[in-house]
C-alpha cells in the first residue's frame, strides 16, 4: 500500500489547519455561507437533508486495518456509530457537526486519509478495480497509476475550477470491474509488445444524459500518461460549456464536438504538456510501485476442502462470495454489507473493527471498498477462510449474496441526500427482504439491481440489469424501471420499460419481472441479462404491465 511521505503529511496538516481556520471564521461570522460553501466542498463537507455529511476518499478503494479501525473510531466519536460506503469508493458520515469536522479531518490524516476533492468541480477521488493486485486474470495492478493520478490531481492549480466535476477510473483487467466506460476518463491498462500502457476512454457518464465513453486513444505509454491526461482535462477546461450546468460534463463536450475533434485538440495540446514533464513522474511511479508490491503469499490450503465438502452453509458462502485469486491457495473474498433488510453500503463501527481485525490477522492487512458498496478482503488464504467465515457470521457480515438480487446498489436517496427526488434505501431493503422470504435468489442467479434516488444516477441505475430510478411525480414518489443495462467491459445503458410505479408497487413489479425471467429462460445457466438479450424487452414489459398486455391481446 502507498505510505505517506513527509511531504504528504505536511501538505495534509497544512490543508487541515487552513480548513480549521475557515470553519472558525464561518462560525464567528467573518465568512458568509456563499464564501464558505466552496471551501467546505473542497474538503468534502456537504450540507444534506437532516445534517452535514462528510465524504472521505478511499483512493482506489484500498485501505488497511488501522485505517478501517480509525474510520470506526471516527464513526463512534463524531457520528452515530456507522458509515456509508458509496459507489465511488468513498465513505460518508451522515451526522457530523460543523465544529467537529476539523478534528475528524485531523484523525483521518493520522492514518493517511483525507476528504480533499471529494466534492466540487475538480478531479474527484480516483477509483479502481476493487480486485486490483489480486485478480487471477489481471494484466497489471492499476493502483500505482491511480495513486500517481491522485497526487497529480490533488490541488492541481489548473484544475480547481473546472466546468463540472471530473471522475477518473482505472482498471488493469479486461473484466473492467471499475465501470471505466461510465467515467469522464476511463483508463484500461493493457500490454502491447511487452509494454504497459493505457487505453483512454473519454466522455462516459451516467446522470441525466447517460453516455458510454469513447476511445480517445487505444494506447498511451505510461511515460506519456500524465501529460496526456493533462492535455485532455485542459482541452475540456477550455472547450467545455459553462453556460448550462446540465451540459457542462465532458461527455457533452465530446458529444457536441465529436471524438475526432477532441482528439485533434488533445494531440495539439500534448507536446507542450509533455515538454513540461521531466520524467520526475516516472521516478515517482517507480517508488509508488514498490509500495504496492504484492504480499508474500504462503502456500497451502489447510483443511479448507474438508470444510467446503461437509458444511453447506460455508460452501454456499464460498461459492457466492469468492473469486479466483492469482495464487491458487488464496481467494478474493467479498464481504457483503447487504444482509437482507440492511442498508446497502452501511457498516457499523463494530463491523468495521471486525473487518480490520480479520484483515490484520488473516489477510495481509488489506481491505478494499467496491463501487458495489461491499468490502473486499483481496488476499484471503483458503486455509483461514473457515475461521473468517465464523467471525463474519458473528458480526452479521456472512450473507452469501454477492452478485445476486439482494446485492443491490442504492444511493442514499431522499433519506439523506439534499438532491434526491425519492427514497432509494427502503426500496432496496424491501426487495432484498422479499426475495429472502421467497428463498429465490440463488435460483435466480446473477442479477444486478441498481437504484438511484434522482436523475444524477449515483446508484448507477442505467447500468443495472434492472435499474430503478426514483422521481418526484406531482408530489409523489414514482419509480421508473430500466432493463438490460450492463456496467461491464461492453457497457450498455438500460432501456426504460414504461410508466413508473408507486413506492408501494415497486417490489411487486420486480417480483413479476423475475418470475417472468424464471419462466422464459432456457435453463439455469442463462442469466437474466442473457435472457433479456435473447428475447428483448417484450416479455419483461408484459410482466411489468400485465393489464396492458391483456388489453393488447383482446
Amino acid at each position, binding site marked *: 500500500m502507498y505510505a505517506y511521505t513527509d511531504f504528504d503529511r505536511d501538505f495534509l496538516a497544512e490543508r487541515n489547519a487552513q480548513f480549521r481556520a475557515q470553519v472558525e471564521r464561518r462560525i464567528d*461570522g467573518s465568512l458568509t*455561507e456563499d464564501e464558505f460553501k466552496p471551501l467546505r466542498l473542497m474538503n468534502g463537507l456537504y450540507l444534506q437533508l*437532516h445534517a452535514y455529511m462528510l465524504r472521505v476518499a478511499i483512493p482506489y478503494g484500498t485501505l488497511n486495518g488501522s485505517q478501517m479501525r480509525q474510520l470506526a473510531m471516527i464513526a463512534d466519536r463524531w457520528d*452515530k456509530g456507522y458509515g456509508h460506503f458509496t459507489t465511488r469508493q468513498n465513505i460518508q458520515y451522515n451526522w457530523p*457537526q460543523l465544529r467537529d469536522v476539523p478534528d475528524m479531518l485531523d484523525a483521518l490524516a493520522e492514518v493517511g486519509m483525507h476528504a480533499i476533492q471529494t466534492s466540487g468541480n475538480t478531479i474527484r477521488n480516483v477509483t479502481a478495480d476493487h480486485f486490483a493486485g489480486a485478480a487471477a486474470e489481471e494484466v497489471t495492478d492499476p493502483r500505482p497509476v491511480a495513486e500517481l493520478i491522485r497526487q497529480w490531481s490533488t490541488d492541481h492549480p489548473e484544475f480547481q475550477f473546472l466546468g463540472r466535476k471530473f471522475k477518473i477510473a482505472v482498471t488493469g483487467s479486461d473484466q473492467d470491474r471499475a465501470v471505466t466506460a461510465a467515467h469522464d476518463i476511463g483508463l484500461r491498462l493493457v500490454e502491447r509488445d511487452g509494454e504497459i500502457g493505457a487505453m483512454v476512454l473519454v466522455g462516459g457518464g451516467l446522470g441525466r444524459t447517460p453516455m458510454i465513453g469513447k476511445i480517445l486513444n487505444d494506447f498511451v505509454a505510461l511515460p506519456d500518461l500524465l501529460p496526456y491526461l493533462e492535455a485532455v482535462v485542459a482541452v475540456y477546461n477550455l472547450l467545455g460549456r459553462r453556460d448550462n450546468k446540465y451540459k457542462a460534463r465532458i461527455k457533452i463536450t465530446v458529444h457536441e464536438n465529436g471524438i475526432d475533434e477532441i482528439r485533434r485538440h488533445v494531440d495539439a495540446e500534448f507536446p507542450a504538456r509533455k515538454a513540461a514533464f521531466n520524467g520526475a513522474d516516472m521516478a515517482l511511479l517507480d517508488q509508488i510501485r514498490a509500495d504496492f508490491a504484492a504480499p508474500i503469499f504462503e502456500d497451502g490450503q489447510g483443511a479448507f476442502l474438508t470444510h467446503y465438502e461437509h458444511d453447506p452453509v460455508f460452501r454456499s458462502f464460498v461459492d457466492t462470495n469468492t473469486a479466483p485469486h492469482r495464487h491458487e491457495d488464496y481467494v478474493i473474498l467479498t464481504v457483503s454489507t447487504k444482509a437482507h433488510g440492511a442498508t446497502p453500503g452501511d457498516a457499523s463501527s463494530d463491523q468495521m473493527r471486525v473487518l480490520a481485525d480479520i484483515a490484520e490477522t488473516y489477510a495481509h492487512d488489506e481491505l478494499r471498498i467496491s463501487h458495489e458498496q461491499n468490502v473486499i478482503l483481496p488476499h484471503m488464504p483458503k486455509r483461514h477462510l473457515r475461521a473468517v467465515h465464523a467471525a463474519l457470521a458473528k458480526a452479521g457480515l456472512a450473507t452469501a449474496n454477492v452478485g445476486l438480487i439482494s446485492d443491490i446498489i442504492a444511493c442514499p436517496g*431522499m*433519506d439523506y441526500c439534499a438532491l434526491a427526488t425519492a427514497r432509494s434505501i427502503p426500496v432496496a431493503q424491501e426487495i432484498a427482504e422479499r426475495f429472502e422470504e421467497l428463498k429465490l435468489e440463488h435460483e435466480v442467479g446473477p442479477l444486478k439491481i441498481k437504484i438511484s434516488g434522482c436523475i444524477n444516477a449515483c446508484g448507477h441505475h442505467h447500468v443495472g440489469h434492472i435499474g430503478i430510478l426514483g422521481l418526484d411525480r406531482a408530489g409523489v414518489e414514482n419509480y421508473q424501471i430500466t432493463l438490460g443495462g450492463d456496467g461491464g467491459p461492453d457497457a450498455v445503458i438500460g432501456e426504460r420499460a414504461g410508466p413508473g410505479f408507486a413506492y408501494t408497487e415497486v417490489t411487486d413489479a420486480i417480483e413479476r419481472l423475475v418470475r417472468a425471467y424464471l419462466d422464459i429462460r432456457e435453463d439455469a445457466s442463462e442469466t437474466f441479462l442473457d435472457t433479456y438479450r435473447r428475447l428483448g424487452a417484450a416479455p419483461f414489459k408484459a410482466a411489468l404491465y400485465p393489464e396492458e398486455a391483456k388489453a393488447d391481446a383482446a
Partner: protein
Amino acid sequence: MPRQFTPKVVTANALLEGDVVYLDPQGHWTRNHAEADLIEDQATADIRLLEAQAQAHEIVGAYLADARKGPKGPEPIHFREAFRTRGPSNYDHGKQEGL
C-alpha cells in the same frame, strides 16, 4: 383572478448541527415544524425569508416550503418536507430519535 397562495413556512438548516429548523412567529428558530409561523400571503413570505437569510450566523440555506394548518400546528405538504420533520427511514435517527 390571482392564483391562490399556498401557505408557507420558512425553513433552513442550523449552522452548527445541520439540523432542520423553522422560523417561528416571534422570529426565532425552532426545530419543530408545528411551531413554525404559517405565512398566508406572498408579501409577508418574501419579507420573512429576507429576515431569515439575514441570520447567516445561525442558519444555512433558508427557503420557503409549502405547508398547511393542522391540529397541532403547521404540517408539511410535500413528502420531502415531511421527511425533514422526522429523519431517515432506515434508522431511528434525526428528529424522530427518542420521540
